[in-house]
């Protein structure tokens, strides 16, 4: 069974009224398919506006109204069992700044339907995993950028997901925090967790991912093993072009 299987997904943000007024449909994703093997760290690469974030939102059930199918460990989305097997760390620091790390973890733990005992046990574990145990009772607003990123990851890990979705998890962090995050991801993967990593940092993808999907203009342009690529940045530019993506 695959951890994630996406087949023939098409999605556009335009409303029907927009379509008729502009005369055309702008697809964020067009007939997009990909899959992630269980137990892998899979890279999702693409230029700005390629459709990576849209894809992440569709996988996590945030966006509806698409055509095609999404399966998480065999469960067709939208499905509560499938949702609870996903952990998601969005690109933005999606935390409550006026709450402490523990308060954030408790809040999201309740949203994930964990019991108070489970929340307490798992909070200790994820704080230790992300190196934040000593800062658990501090307000998140007092955290450095790297600490906030690590807590963003900790919240995603709280309910012990089987599939972890990471959108640019190392943006704006120092090398120390970045290495800590890589180390954490490797350990999680070694314990059996499947990881889908969306990133712009080629070295990051080449360094920790074993397979890759390249997306551009809403379409899949490459899907295969990382070992098949010699120079990822060169490969990326060959497949997606050198022109600026300002549209």
């Amino acid at each position: 069974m695959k951890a994630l299987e996406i087949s023939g997904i098409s999605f556009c943000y335009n409303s029907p009224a927009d379509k008729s007024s502009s005369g055309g449909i702008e697809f964020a994703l067009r007939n997009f398919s990909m899959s992630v093997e269980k137990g892998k760290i899979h890279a999702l690469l693409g230029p700005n506006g390629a459709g990576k974030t849209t894809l992440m939102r569709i996988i996590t059930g945030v966006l509806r109204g698409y055509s095609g199918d999404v399966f998480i460990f065999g469960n067709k989305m939208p499905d509560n069992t499938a949702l609870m097997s996903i952990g998601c760390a969005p690109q933005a620091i999606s935390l409550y700044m006026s709450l402490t790390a523990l308060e954030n973890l408790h809040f999201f733990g309740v949203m994930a339907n964990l019991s108070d005992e489970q929340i307490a046990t798992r909070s200790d574990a994820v704080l230790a995993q992300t190196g934040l145990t000593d800062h658990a009772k501090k307000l998140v607003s007092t955290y450095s950028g790297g600490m906030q990123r690590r807590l963003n990851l900790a919240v995603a890990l709280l309910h012990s997901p089987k599939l972890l979705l990471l959108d640019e998890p190392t943006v704006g962090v120092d090398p120390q925090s970045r290495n800590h995050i890589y180390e954490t991801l490797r350990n999680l993967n070694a314990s059996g967790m499947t990881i889908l990593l969306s990133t712009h940092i080629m070295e990051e993808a080449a360094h920790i991912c074993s397979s890759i999907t390249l997306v551009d203009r809403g379409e899949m342009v490459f899907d295969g093993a990382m070992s098949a690529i010699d120079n990822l940045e060169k490969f990326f530019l060959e497949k997606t072009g050198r022109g600026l993506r300002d549209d």
Partner: protein
Amino acid sequence: MIKRQLTEFVKKEMLIMFRDKQTILLLFFMPLALIFFMTLAYKGVYADKIYEKQIPLVIENESKTPKANLLEKKIVSNKMIKRVDLPPGVDKDCIFEQGKAQVLVIIPKGFEEGTKPVEIYFDPVFDTGYKIAVRSLMTSLTVEVVMGIENIDAIVANLITEKTKKDMIVPSPLQLTVPAYAIFAMFFIAIPMSIGFLKEKNDGTLQRLFTYSVSPNAIALGKIIPYYVINVIQFVLMLFVGTFIAPYLIDTPFQTGTHLWHLIPVTLVVAAATTGFGVLIATLAKTLEQTSTLAATGAILMGVLGGIMVPHFVMSHTMQKLAMISPIFWAHQAYLDVFLRNANFSTILPKLAVLSLFALACFFIAGRRIKWM
């Protein structure tokens, strides 16, 4: 599960709100300060007699005849009047510019013969109520002097007498300012409420919530309930201060009326209207700047129209009609029904119906416009 999630939402919102000093200042200290200062400012306006104030008056007796001297004596000896001398070198035409006096009375030559009338000049910014009182005083005193009557008030007392109900209490400004500024502050909840919603939308926490099996209805209720509770707390706090603290600090009585329990449905409906307004602003605004501007401007405009800034009875007829479009007007009138008019619930009910309609309209429009992402 939903109950636990809702409890957690309420807890989270409360923690965020009570850790934000600016929000606390806005929701609790601003209305308290307004209640104190506006009560003091309105103290004279709402009294049924000239209160704690003597009107500074310059009197120029150009006649110096016995009758003119008697009139001058009667004017300056009246308790309402504080005689002020024209400062040396100051022209009487400039007396108001210097702020030394608010009334100038000239007893001209020829007054005794009835050829020239007594002249009264008022400071242009002088309160109309005081102006009427001074005009009435001058009329009485001049009639007394000219017609040789000793005490006109005693004669008039036999002709006109003012009757009031036995238990009728003259309303104190506190009875108007407490509900007025409590409602005003309750409508200001729209600011933190809409900012909170937009922040969560922008920083991705809302998106993150949708990755769990949490329904949009639970999320919406989780945002509404805490602010509804805060609204009720706001009113209870204002009422507590108005009843137990303010009367001692500013020596102004506060009566809660004979049907105190009516406050419960009134406050619950007003809180629904204010949270509805907050939800509407949250769905209308696209940026944080827009939320503050829309919420603050909306609350102030509704306050002005609704008789918070300028009492409804002082407004012109047109404005009194216009006031009816403001939910704050209906809320204020409902509270005044309880505090001042001792009204039956059937009298209050239509006002609550208007407020409920406003709340429903806000929630309906917000529901149609809401974009979670």
